């Protein structure tokens, strides 16, 4: 099987639904990070989508709709998705601030201001070639903060909170860029210390470093045995440019 056939089969089996949990996690990471792969998946969704005709419809119980309405009413009713989204975002930043202590909090406030109202930042506070990424869970809880200073070639990552992986497991950090044919590449395993991500990242040009997606997966103790993520990928994020 060639790499292309492997990608095709992975996309097709994802859509058919035969992958295991680890493979699904990997596909979800690739969908976020690998646009040609996402296009493959969408093509398969189109090819196999009509298979739903073989599934017999079943009426859901009436309480399902009542609960959907209740959950909708539990969120701000006016303005729909946008406001809900902003509220979530605000809550996310707030929880980041509470969890990560004063230093990270001010950094993140800085990012939040930069994201929503960049004109409020005085020019001297816009350091050149500095980036930050908050690797968050799907629900918005932050797990790791990564900072990059391209001028001094300094790269660092640190956990927000305890940073402890589930018992008997290790967190491993990855990055992936659309040009990486073989999928995510390892940036190191979290042990009692954080991985030296600079050792790897310093070898890559800024276009790759800046536009990659960074992620942390849960792996067997000591790191992935295969060189690719094998476990769930709870945390991921992209670098935010602090200069502009």
């Amino acid at each position, binding site marked *: *099987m060639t790499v292309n*056939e492997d990608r*095709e*089969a992975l996309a*097709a*089996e994802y*859509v*058919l*639904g*035969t*992958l*295991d*949990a680890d493979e*699904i996690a990997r596909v979800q990471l690739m969908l976020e990070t690998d646009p040609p792969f996402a296009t493959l998946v*969408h093509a398969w*969704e*189109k*090819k*196999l*989508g*009509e*298979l*739903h*005709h*073989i*599934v*017999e*419809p*079943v*009426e*859901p*119980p009436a*309480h*399902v*709709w009542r*609960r*959907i309405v209740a*959950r*909708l009413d539990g969120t701000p009713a006016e*303005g*729909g*998705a946008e406001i*809900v*989204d902003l509220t979530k975002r605000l809550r996310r930043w707030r929880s980041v601030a509470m969890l990560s202590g004063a230093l990270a909090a001010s950094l993140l406030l800085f990012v939040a201001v930069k994201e929503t109202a960049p004109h409020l930042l005085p020019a001297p506070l816009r350091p050149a070639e500095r980036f930050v990424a908050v690797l968050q869970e799907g629900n918005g809880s932050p797990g790791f903060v990564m900072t990059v200073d391209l001028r001094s070639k300094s790269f660092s990552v640190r956990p927000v909170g305890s940073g402890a992986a589930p018992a008997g497991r290790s967190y491993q950090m990855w990055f992936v860029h659309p040009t990486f044919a073989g999928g995510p590449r390892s940036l190191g395993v979290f042990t009692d210390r954080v991985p030296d991500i600079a050792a790897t990242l310093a070898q890559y040009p800024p276009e790759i470093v800046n536009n990659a997606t960074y992620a942390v997966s849960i792996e067997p103790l000591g790191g992935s045995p295969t060189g690719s993520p094998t476990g769930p990928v709870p945390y991921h994020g992209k670098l935010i440019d602090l200069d502009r």
Partner: protein
Amino acid sequence: MSTPAELVQLLNAVSRGDRVAFEQLYTATRAKLYGVVLRILRRHDLADEVIQEVYLKIWSGAGQFNPGLASPITWMVTIARNRAIDLVRKRAEVSIEEEPEAMDVAADLPNPLARRELAEEVRRLMGCIERLEPERQSLVLLAYRNGWSREQLAAKLGKPVNTIKTWLRRSLLEIRECLGS
């Protein structure tokens, strides 16, 4: 079930926060989506929970629906199946209990008469699946309908996992070629 054009209109309205349209969309699609997730999860409590999440996701994500990529119902079914399969794979305790009628896949292929009423795309896909060897037809249909992993398919069909993996790949590539021609 409403026509695809009606569902597109409803999704557009939902993306603007129209709750009445959302209820109409729910009414038009709930049995299809619930059937899909219940078949995979095989437990009403889990299906109830997943179907709520799915409709909340449709409510907040309706603006992302792209009619160029999928029909409204396949877009919604995709969201529902992905969520159900995600959950079932993470829950080791949802075992595959014996389910003899699941093996009766012949009944799953719409008969030729019924097929005449199906849209052109469905007929083409079904035609391509019918061109696979019978055992592989069952494999693809069981995988889709029941959301079974390769391991579960291997256990059900009494074949090694590697055989199932090879068959799945070949069947899917054959379907792709058949649809492309």
